[in-house]
């Protein structure tokens, strides 16, 4: 186990290194941010000072080296647009994204799991077919367009909900969150539903598959033979068994929800990190782009590592195969 752990750790570090080089080189190949930042009429002297200040006169490998050594000191550089450190910029935007992701994953689970359980419990009923059809729609219709339809229906035509933005922020425990105010909830509910649809489709399909499989197993048949009521079988026995894979997927999908938030945040003008990365791409704000992407790579490598380690713990075959 120890050898496996070390091997996977080295691999993870290498992946982060390679990805950071790719991201760095890739991002630095896009346009010249100096041209975007300053007035074209500025003197040559100002230009050169700025270039020197940001270190663009140095060769690329040296810029990368500076970047990495700064990262190890907790410094991800300064945003060229907002002129504040990237770390504080990202951390100021992070709560907005996290609360959006949290609410949407909550919605997806609270609706998706019961709906999937019903669809698996009565697979031939009309309601089950309807649920499955809706899950296909959640998968295939592009998120941004559904978001737009929601805005059109509930903000423009009915006027029930605000069309975008984060709303009032209140204090909850020691966090500033819009989930503490009713105005904040009015703002978060539509983007959260939009973000949850894809996930909900996935949850429905997974739960249904687990349910159908469990219904045919011996333990369910035995429980039936004992004369246990269906309710007790479903909630007492089956639910416990199908919840393990659901929790795994749930954890894995948390990361991808963060990525999908990019689209939803743009549609609803939600001031989170997703909106930040789109804005920084459009404004060529290199330090923000590089930092965000490296952080995302780190996040996904970490999720993968944890999943791999858990699997290795559970299944000895994985350990033996990839051990050396």
């Amino acid at each position, binding site marked *: 186990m120890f050898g496996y752990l070390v091997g996977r750790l080295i691999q993870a570090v290498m992946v982060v290194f390679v990805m950071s080089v790719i991201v760095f080189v890739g991002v630095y190949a896009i346009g010249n941010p100096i041209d975007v930042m300053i007035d074209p009429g500025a003197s040559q002297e100002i230009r050169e000072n700025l270039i020197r200040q940001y270190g663009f006169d140095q060769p690329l490998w040296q810029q990368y080296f500076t970047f990495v050594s700064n990262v190890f000191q907790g410094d991800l550089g300064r945003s060229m647009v907002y002129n504040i450190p990237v770390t504080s910029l990202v951390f100021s935007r992070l709560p907005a994204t996290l609360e959006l992701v949290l609410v949407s994953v909550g919605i997806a689970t609270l609706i998706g799991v019961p709906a999937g359980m019903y669809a698996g419990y009565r697979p031939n009923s009309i309601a089950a077919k309807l649920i499955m059809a809706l899950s296909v729609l959640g*998968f*295939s219709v*592009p998120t941004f367009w559904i978001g737009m339809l929601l805005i059109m229906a509930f903000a*423009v035509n009915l006027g029930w909900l605000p069309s975008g933005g984060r709303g009032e922020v209140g204090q909850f425990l020691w966090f500033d969150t819009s989930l503490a105010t009713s105005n904040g909830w009015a703002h978060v509910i539509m983007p959260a539903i939009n973000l949850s649809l894809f996930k909900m489709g996935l949850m429905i399909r997974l739960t249904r598959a687990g349910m159908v499989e469990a219904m045919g197993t011996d333990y369910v048949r035995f429980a039936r033979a004992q004369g246990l009521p269906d309710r007790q079988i479903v909630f007492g026995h089956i639910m416990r068994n199908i919840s393990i894979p659901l929790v795994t997927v749930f954890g894995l999908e948390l990361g991808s929800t963060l990525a999908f938030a990019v*689209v939803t945040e743009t549609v609803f003008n939600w001031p989170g990190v997703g909106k930040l990365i789109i804005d920084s*791409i459009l404004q060529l704000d290199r330090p923000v782009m590089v930092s965000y992407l490296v952080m995302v790579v780190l996040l996904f490598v970490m999720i993968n590592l944890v999943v791999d380690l858990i699997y290795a713990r559970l299944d000895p075959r994985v350990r033996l195969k990839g051990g050396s």
Partner: protein
Amino acid sequence: MAQIGNVLAVPSAAPVETRVMRLRNFWSDYRRSWVAVAALAVIVTLLVAAFGAPWLVPQDPYDLAQLDWLDAFLPPRTAGSGGYVHLLGTDNAGRDMLSAILYGLRTSFVIGISAGALALTLGISIGLTSAYFGGRIEALLMRIVDLQLSMPAILLALVMAAVLGQGVPQIILALVVAQYAYFARTTHGAASVERRKDYIEAARSTPLPTRRILFKHLLPNVLPPLIVVATVQVASAISLEATLSFLGVGLPLTEPSLGSLISNGFKYIHAGRSWLSIYPGVFLMITVVAINLVGDQVRTVIDPRNSR
């Protein structure tokens, strides 16, 4: 993976079947679902409409000389200065929406299909190579593929599009990078099962060149599951491209795809001009859902558990 192995056992088990017979059998299985047949008809209609657009619609939305600013924001079913009725209205530049949508659909199809085909080719090459040679090559290539699969495609495509810039070839490349891993994974899974079978052993013992074994012996037997993945990936490529264009890193409005049309229309929804974004979105949704339905049915048909 076991299912894929079973899929592959079918063609080798019935070698007397000719290609025409197999196609006829496939069709008789396929048409059992009327939804899937309808979806196929919808796709064919959309393809004809998109590629026949220059002869079908009244206006070339790329040609600035044909646009009149006085026609801007005409609601659906009103007549403009061109003397014809704008069935789906006009946009902020006076473009006829129906014309723009069909031209945009053409762009979306071109991007989706070529990205799908290129990703398929790249994925097959990587999957076959790693499964056939095994060892270090396999470990390295599949590790990269798995890593990529763990990241959301939208993020990869976004980064690639940002790095490469706007334009049709750039978007296609970004989509290929984001999607080839699905094909590589599927090919590798199917090919590692096939590779252990006797006919490959037999072929290897003859002086046939490796290239021939790979593409003439191994490839045809791993193709069925790939067809399913390819259909679904074309749909998701079209949807991804639309998303990228909507986010502003895809195609500019001078080369309208469905995504850039929706993105443009989005600016005007608060002014009650919903037709600018609703109609391109409806076309996008119909296209993607229809392709997915066809893919679903193909999966059902080639799955041996459902065979007669």
